[in-house]
């Protein structure tokens, strides 16, 4: 059977058709994050036949991800592969016709602007924090690229496509960021809530990528798959003329802030991330660790060790994850003690 047949069930869907399928094949989607939402959206778009997909993630596959992150297997967790790398492996087995780029790292303002310059047709939010969403939102407004917001926690989630010049932007929608935010770290998350959020995100992305913007849902979907709640919230006058991201005197504040703090507590994990101002040489590191007598486990992308009961993961780009703490000072101290 030919690869033409491959998309037959999608081209028979009249609103897409052969024309929409061809449009999709010409498009480039950026997915920010390869956690639960990133896995689901990436798989749906790759199976659907998007032309090109870039996926960026800073984390590696952990056993606690397997409960809901559909691109990963036990072997990926055993090997501690970076999520972007493991995701690309599986996505390539699913559809070798799609050009897939996987980036291990964090999305900074500089990077997102560079992607937008290259030409991105849709950005999909699969992040786990509001700061990165504000970055996506500002880049989206500056380059007039739509993005699809999605988030979920517990059995509850929400999603909306944000189209510059047409819908309110994310900052209009959420002028006050929560001081304390629910994450899968504190209240957990179940697979069906992820699947529903992904369904809503991918549906809107597919409309945008097949040239059917007129079908995009002009409302915020909110739902709770356990409590059996469901609502589409219309936008009303929510668009703010004074909005700093999409208003008349816009300044794109998220793009101008210093890109990420040097250290941060990671969402959904009892973990601190340090950013070293230099990249890491794993050979040197291995030498150093041998002298101190610490076991060091490595794969081509990262190195892991155990220090005073804390798992420590070092990435080549200079990021260091210290697990088992939410105390940035404690994490810094531990790092200093062993690596100077």
């Amino acid at each position: 059977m030919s690869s033409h047949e491959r998309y037959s069930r999608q081209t028979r869907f009249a609103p897409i058709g052969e024309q929409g399928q061809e449009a999709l094949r010409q498009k480039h989607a950026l997915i920010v994050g390869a956690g639960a939402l990133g896995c689901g959206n990436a798989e749906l778009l790759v199976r659907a036949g998007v032309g090109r997909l870039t996926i960026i993630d800073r984390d590696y596959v952990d056993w606690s991800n397997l409960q809901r992150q559909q691109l990963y297997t036990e072997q990926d967790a055993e090997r501690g592969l970076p999520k972007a790398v493991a995701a690309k492996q599986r996505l390539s087995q699913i559809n070798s016709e799609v050009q897939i780029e996987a980036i291990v790292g964090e999305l900074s303002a500089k990077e997102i602007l560079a992607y937008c310059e290259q030409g991105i047709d849709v950005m999909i939010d699969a992040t786990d924090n509001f700061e990165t969403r504000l970055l996506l939102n500002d880049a989206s407004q500056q380059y007039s690229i739509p993005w699809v917001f999605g988030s979920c926690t517990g059995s509850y989630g929400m999603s909306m496509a944000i189209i510059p010049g047409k819908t309110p932007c994310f900052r209009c929608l959420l002028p006050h960021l929560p001081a304390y935010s629910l994450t899968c770290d504190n209240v957990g998350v179940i697979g069906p809530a992820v699947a529903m959020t992904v369904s809503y995100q991918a549906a809107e992305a597919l409309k945008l990528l097949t040239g059917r913007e007129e079908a995009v849902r002009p409302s915020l979907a909110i739902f709770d798959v356990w409590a059996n709640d469901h609502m589409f919230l219309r936008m009303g006058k929510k668009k703010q003329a004074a909005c700093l991201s999409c208003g008349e005197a816009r300044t794109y504040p998220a793009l101008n802030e210093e890109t990420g703090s040097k250290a941060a507590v990671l969402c959904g994990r009892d973990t601190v991330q340090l950013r070293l101002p230099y990249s890491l040489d794993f050979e040197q590191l291995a030498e150093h660790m041998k002298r101190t007598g610490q076991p060091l486990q490595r794969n081509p992308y990262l190195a892991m060790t155990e220090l005073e009961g804390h798992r420590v993961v070092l990435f080549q780009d200079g990021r260091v994850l210290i697990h088992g703490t939410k105390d940035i000072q404690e994490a810094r101290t531990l790092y200093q003690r062993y690596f100077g």
Partner: protein
Amino acid sequence: MITVLVFAHLKEKFGQPRLVLEEQELTVSQLRRVLAEQYDLQDNSVMIAVNEEFAEEDEVIRAGDTVALIPPVSGG
């Protein structure tokens, strides 16, 4: 009477999936004050919709309307 539907963890916070307010008329920001004072909801980031439409802070809610309190979540 104004019905207030609550979502996600607010259900546990309030111990029920909906509140009923006896007010005849109040603005969205007045509602926030009532929720803060009588229900200990201090969170300014909770989004408020009236009759399934997002509401501005000065919008007037009237008896018979249905309000929804939507806490944003960051997980992904």
